[in-house]
């Protein structure tokens, strides 16, 4: 029983006159992990940032078309509500350096001025850190600054921070490209757990990672969605020659 959570209909994104995402039509089912791959400059990150309206934070960036979240067009919604429902994890771990680990997890609540009783905050912090397999490592140093953690721990803290807001979808923009191999595999393992509660969209330039973690894979090239299919099919029997060339390493 699959239900669509995100549906992109004729989505276009621009930087000024530069057309970087071209007429993307794509349906994403709930509780799946979707890998989005393609060569540098193919528009995959821009598309990802379009889903939670982060794209338009850049001066001169515009978008049109539709991205439906549970049937509601996010381009018509206020970006703040979109971002509460669609969380994001960035390429470089970016915990708030002035906040403790504890406060970093509930940063979304703090920033948005939502007052919670201490008991409720404790629950959110423990639950979120447990979901990212960080609780046991940091439970005795919650008052320390987030920047004390290692890169991989920082990235898991950032995932916890996004998870704490209880979004429906989590966007990952090359989440392991700044991490060492061990931290990378820890984060990859998380994807399997997180999928139970959230829909994951993971931009990656690492094909092995796409093959390891995703249920479906989308291949972007020159701003177009070239092919989108089951990950197994994509890597064993791609239909488009451009996908074949990319997977076999003929261009990157």
């Amino acid at each position, binding site marked *: 029983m699959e239900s669509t959570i995100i549906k992109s209909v004729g989505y276009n994104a621009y930087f000024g006159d530069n057309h970087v995402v071209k007429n993307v039509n794509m349906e994403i089912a709930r509780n799946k992990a979707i890998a989005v791959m393609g060569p540098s400059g193919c528009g995959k990150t821009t598309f990802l940032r379009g889903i939670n309206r982060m794209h338009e934070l850049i001066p001169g960036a515009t978008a049109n078309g539709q991205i439906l979240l549970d049937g509601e067009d996010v381009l018509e919604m206020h970006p703040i509500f979109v*971002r509460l429902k669609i969380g994001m994890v960035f390429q*470089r771990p970016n915990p*708030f350096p*002035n906040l403790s680990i504890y406060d970093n997890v509930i940063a979304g609540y*703090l*920033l*948005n*001025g939502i007052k919670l009783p201490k008991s409720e905050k404790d629950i959110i912090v423990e639950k979120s850190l447990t979901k990212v397999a960080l609780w046991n490592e940091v439970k005795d140093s919650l008052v320390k600054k987030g920047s004390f953690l290692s890169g991989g721990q920082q990235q898991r803290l950032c995932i916890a921070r*996004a998870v704490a*807001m209880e979004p429906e979808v989590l966007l990952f923009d090359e989440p392991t490209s700044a991490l060492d191999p061990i931290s990378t595999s820890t984060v990859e393992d998380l994807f399997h757990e997180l999928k139970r509660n959230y829909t994951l969209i993971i931009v990656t330039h690492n094909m092995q990672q796409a093959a390891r973690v995703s249920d479906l894979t989308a291949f972007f090239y020159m701003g177009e969605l070239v092919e989108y299919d089951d990950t197994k099919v994509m890597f064993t029997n791609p239909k488009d020659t451009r996908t074949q060339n990319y997977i076999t390493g003929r261009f990157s």
Partner: protein
Amino acid sequence: MNSSIDNPLITRSENLERVINYNAKSEVSVKTKNSIKRSHRQIKTEVVFRRTLSVIGWLMIALVIGILLTLIWQSMPSIKKYGFSYVWTQVWNPTASVVNPEVFGALPFLFGTLLTSFLALLISIPFSLAVAIFLGEYYPEGWFSNLLMNTVELIASIPSVIYGFWGLAVIIPILGKSIMTSSLILAVMIIPYAASLGRSMIRMVPANLKEAAYSLGSTRYEVIRSVIIPYVKSGLFAGVLLSLGRALGETMAVTMVIGNNNSFPKSIFSTGNTLASMIALELPEATDDTHISALVELGLILFVVTVVINLIGRKIISRYSNV
């Protein structure tokens, strides 16, 4: 070989020497021999150039130390005569008479300087902070942003006598000559210092921190309040200190509008004098040695106060930009 050429720790001339040694050891053609001659000349030029620069640099340092020494030397008579009580004495009377003996005390002017400057700071902070946030985060580009930025920077380049004239023509008819009047004018004059430093600090806030906050559903105001301001607060403070340093020393505009009263100011709406305005007013007409020396000591106090404020400001900036 290449790695040492690329090493930024090795100076250019050292580099050239290494290149030459390398070339000398290897088989050299006529063409490279010519280039070796040229390189030797380059090293000479480089050495002469570097020495000239360091001489000029030391000259600057000697100049500032010289100014400080002159101030101390010239104020020695006053320092010897009044000692530390000079700083606390409230009376300034250069003309001795039977009832009022000649006496010099810096307190009214030290207080006048600090009061006008801090008042000016208080008035200017909301404006400079607003301009810094507006130009740093809200509208970093576009015609209005350019217009505002150029206008604010122009404020710093208007000669202070023009501010004095503006104060005479516009503010004095309303407030009269007073400490408040000079603070208002000073406030305008110092806006650009805190504003432009604040703007560049705000622009240096890493985009990924701002994006983290946006991705959690923050509004722009919340990002500014909870991410940007905490990140740049020491930088903003340093900007405020630099503009304070500017306000402390401002002479012309203040002298024109403060009312030039040598007694201790009773309120911010009474007339007064600052260290700088006193020197500007009385030094050209002073003939008595103790009087001149007392005025120079005012200058020494002003020098020390401004230098200390500036050093603290710079210290904060450098610590901040190293992070």
